[in-house]
């Protein structure tokens, strides 16, 4: 029996288990191909620069542009489209992570255009397998759910729990 509790787009309070010091992850975003934010959860985020709507739009815009940049800068591909031309999922070279001095952003796009973004500490290693696992969770709990309408925010407690659990187990 699936329980449809609400996990709103606004963040749930950080889980009060006191494992904050071990938790490597700051936030997670899931977008569909039209830019709708299907899931946003934060665990540790001391700084909120913008309100949530703007933050989501900015994040989606940044990823779109970075993908376009990566496709253009690809040194191995001879024929590249022009900058700004929307790329199909899987077309051209795509980036999988970037790192700044305060965070590391791990990115994965599925063939259906669903984008998974996990923001973690800068020292974290390659999280592509983790993102693939989270995609599998998405497929099982969300995509295969007959009561879920694609393109709407995800409201599935089982999915949230599974994601929480898996993300907490990421070690640096």
């Amino acid at each position, binding site marked *: 029996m699936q329980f449809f509790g609400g996990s709103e787009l606004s963040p749930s309070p950080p889980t009060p288990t006191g494992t904050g010091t071990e938790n490597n992850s*700051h*936030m997670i975003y899931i977008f569909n191909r039209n830019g709708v934010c299907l899931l946003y959860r*934060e665990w*540790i*985020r*001391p*700084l909120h*620069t*913008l309100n949530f709507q703007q*933050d989501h739009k*900015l*994040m989606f*815009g*940044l990823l779109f*542009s*970075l993908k*376009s*940049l*990566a496709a*253009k*800068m*690809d*040194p*191995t*591909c*001879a*024929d*590249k489209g022009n*900058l700004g031309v929307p790329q199909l999922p899987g077309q051209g*070279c*795509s*980036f*999988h*992570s*970037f*790192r*700044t*001095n*305060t*965070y590391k*952003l791990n990115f994965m796009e599925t063939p259906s255009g669903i984008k998974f973004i996990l*923001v973690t500490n800068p020292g974290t290693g390659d999280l592509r397998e983790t993102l693939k696992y989270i995609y599998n969770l998405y497929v099982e709990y969300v995509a295969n759910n007959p009561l879920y309408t694609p393109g709407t925010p995800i409201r599935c407690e089982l999915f949230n729990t599974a994601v929480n659990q898996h993300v907490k187990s990421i070690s640096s």
Partner: protein
Amino acid sequence: MAAICSLYIINKSGGLIFYKDYGSMVRMDTNDSLRVASLWHSMHAISQQLSPTTGCTGIELLEADTFDLHCFQSLTGTKFFVVCEPGTQNMEALLKVVYELYTDYVLKNPFYEMEMPIRCELFDINLTQAIQKDRVALLGR
């Protein structure tokens, strides 16, 4: 072989002032390199806005499927970034060396106008030497 594909230098307003290509399959034409540089400048700034904690200074490393991009921003806002093969080591050190060459041969050049494209012969010569030395050191291992 781990190798550098190209080097870009952007001024503090985001304009490209230096671009050198070291062997990617297709050399980008001038307009494209200008666009890419401006785009990178904006992305670098936006990434600071999305930081979950304070004190973010922008993207330092971008990892893609077929290349890595290392970026170094000086205190004045000039950005040096290099596109290289995935997994290339010591790019941060190389960028610092390029920064030092920039300060020595470009900024101290009395005929160089700030924020303008770099046309300093000594800078080019020394830069080529530094990249060659780096390449030899990498291949020699």
